[in-house]
């Protein structure tokens, strides 16, 4: 039973990690928390749904479409909204993105109705049984996709020119612009990449989770905690945070009491930040 709980927790934890990765990237580069992150996820899931229902495209095959579409959305949101509140107080930034979230969620309900939608059969279905541990196909695929994407993001940030430019901007905007890096474009890139991550997560989730206008909220709160747990701005931290939350939630649910499993998620956050005030991997 421990093995099953661990495996289930790890699988969902990887997906939390990917959602959190996009959030932490945006924060790391420009210190803005995107409160509309859950709604980005929701939009990506709807995109998968419509591609599947309308054109018969499998969400896994259409993954790049989701990534590109959400990348574009992130860039548009940056230029249309975020750029205007760059110098505003932190709270105004929070509410700009919060307002965006309320707007998107309800616009989705207005356009697509509150109905729950599921994709039906996709490429990945069924389940695998291994030594008494059951693993569902879609969840396994989602976890795999999440790991690959997060690793890709990490590689992009730490091993490429563009990643170094992003990190340099995060470190010191002025110094970066002196070095010929255009911070404005880097910010737009961060929003694009952050949204693209959640776009991938949305496509993966849509293979086993239902789509409805409020779907983002459930995952966004977990992602916030994962990001803070790992340390704002750290991709590795977000990954660790997401996985830790998935496992803690699963173990607490199986061995303690399901109704209060989230208490342990929040408690582990409190314990970690009280010991390390900037999270597991945050810059001290």
């Amino acid at each position, binding site marked *: 039973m421990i093995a099953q709980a661990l495996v289930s927790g790890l699988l969902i934890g990887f997906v939390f990690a990917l959602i959190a990765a996009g959030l932490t990237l945006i*924060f790391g580069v420009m210190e803005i*928390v995107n409160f509309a992150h859950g709604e980005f996820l929701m939009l990506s899931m709807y995109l998968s749904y419509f591609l599947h229902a309308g054109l018969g495209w499998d969400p896994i095959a259409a993954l790049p479409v989701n990534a590109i579409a959400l990348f574009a959305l992130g860039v548009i949101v940056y230029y249309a*909204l975020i750029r*205007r*509140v760059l110098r*505003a*107080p*932190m*709270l*105004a*930034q*929070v*509410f*700009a993105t*919060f*307002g*965006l*979230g*309320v*707007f*998107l*969620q*309800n*616009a989705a*309900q*207005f356009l697509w109705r509150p109905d729950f939608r599921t994709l039906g059969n996709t490429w990945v279905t069924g389940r695998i049984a291994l030594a008494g541990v059951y693993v569902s196909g879609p969840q396994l695929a989602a976890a795999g996709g999440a790991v690959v994407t997060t690793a890709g993001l990490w590689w992009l940030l730490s091993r490429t020119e563009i990643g170094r430019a992003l990190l340099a901007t995060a470190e010191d905007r002025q110094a970066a612009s002196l070095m010929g890096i255009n911070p404005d474009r880097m910010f737009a890139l961060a929003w694009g990449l952050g949204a693209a991550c959640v776009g991938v997560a949305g496509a993966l989730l849509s293979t086993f989770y239902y789509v409805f206008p409020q779907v983002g909220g459930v995952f966004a*709160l977990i992602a*916030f*905690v994962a990001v*803070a747990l790992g340390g*704002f701005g750290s991709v590795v931290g977000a990954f660790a945070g997401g996985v830790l939350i998935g496992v803690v939630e699963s173990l607490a649910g199986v061995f303690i*009491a399901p*109704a*209060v499993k*989230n*208490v342990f998620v*929040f*408690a582990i*956050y*409190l314990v970690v*930040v*009280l010991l390390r*005030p*900037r*999270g597991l991997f945050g810059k001290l």
Partner: protein
Amino acid sequence: MKIGIAAAVVVAVLLYPLVLRGPYPQHLMILVLLNALLGTAWNILGGFAGQISLGQATFFGAGAYTSTLLFQHAGVSPWVGLVAGAALAAALALAIGYPCFRLSGHYFAIATIAIGEIAGIAVTNWEFAGGAVGLFLPVEGEGMAAFKFGDKLGYYYVVAAFLALSVALAAWLRRGRAGYYWRAIREDQAAARSVGVPALRYKQLAIAISAALTAMAGTFYAQYLLFIDPPSVLPLSLSIQICLVAVLGGAGTLVGPLLGAAVLVPLSAATSVALGGSGRSLDLVVYGALIMVIAVFEPSGLVGIARRLRSRISTQR
């Protein structure tokens, strides 16, 4: 001129329910006053001392549950319950503040979310406190002593008095040493510490007062609706709404939360009346868009518009 305006506002608030006698306009104004009270309480911690709390619902719930449970199990007057709830919330706030004030910025804000969520889950699973079913208060037995009124007027003036008390307290604190220290902590905590500001003690003062006032509002809410359950008094959305009122009005100023409540509450009511019955949530689409517009064009809050209006009037003179 400032005093003149303040006096005019006070008179207008006092006369309002006598002019508009229907229960709905009165209810709307009670909500405005209640939100102004909550915003003012948040502002002491978040605006003055710069510690962003997204867990005010914890204190609101503490107030609502303390007075209601005391009444149900021991027949204690809700007025006594109000004081007990405020005291409990303040104690809770100190217990939260002591470890959590080591955290800064977003880490503190998310810690308050975490505590709020834990409180919500805990009460939901706590049989004695009604659990998920919630607690009903009996409708009968009206009167000032019972903190229960047959019509809205009684509630209206009670919440107006609470608000007046909180605004006066906030004004007094802001003008004194506490206000001075809070400003220093908000601008640069390290610098404030280095010149001898006892940062932790004054942050603790801010959170305790903020919590006590929020708990008073919670007791009021319980007496007003006569029904409480975790989703109505302990949700994250309430914490966010409280913060929204203060921030959109203008964090750190005295009138900000009042302005925020006076604009946001009627605005959300008006959009929901005009568009909400359609079942397509167009009202919330508009509401979200307006929040974005305010954040973009008035990042320091509605208070900015008011200031500009005033300076235009005074330059014309």
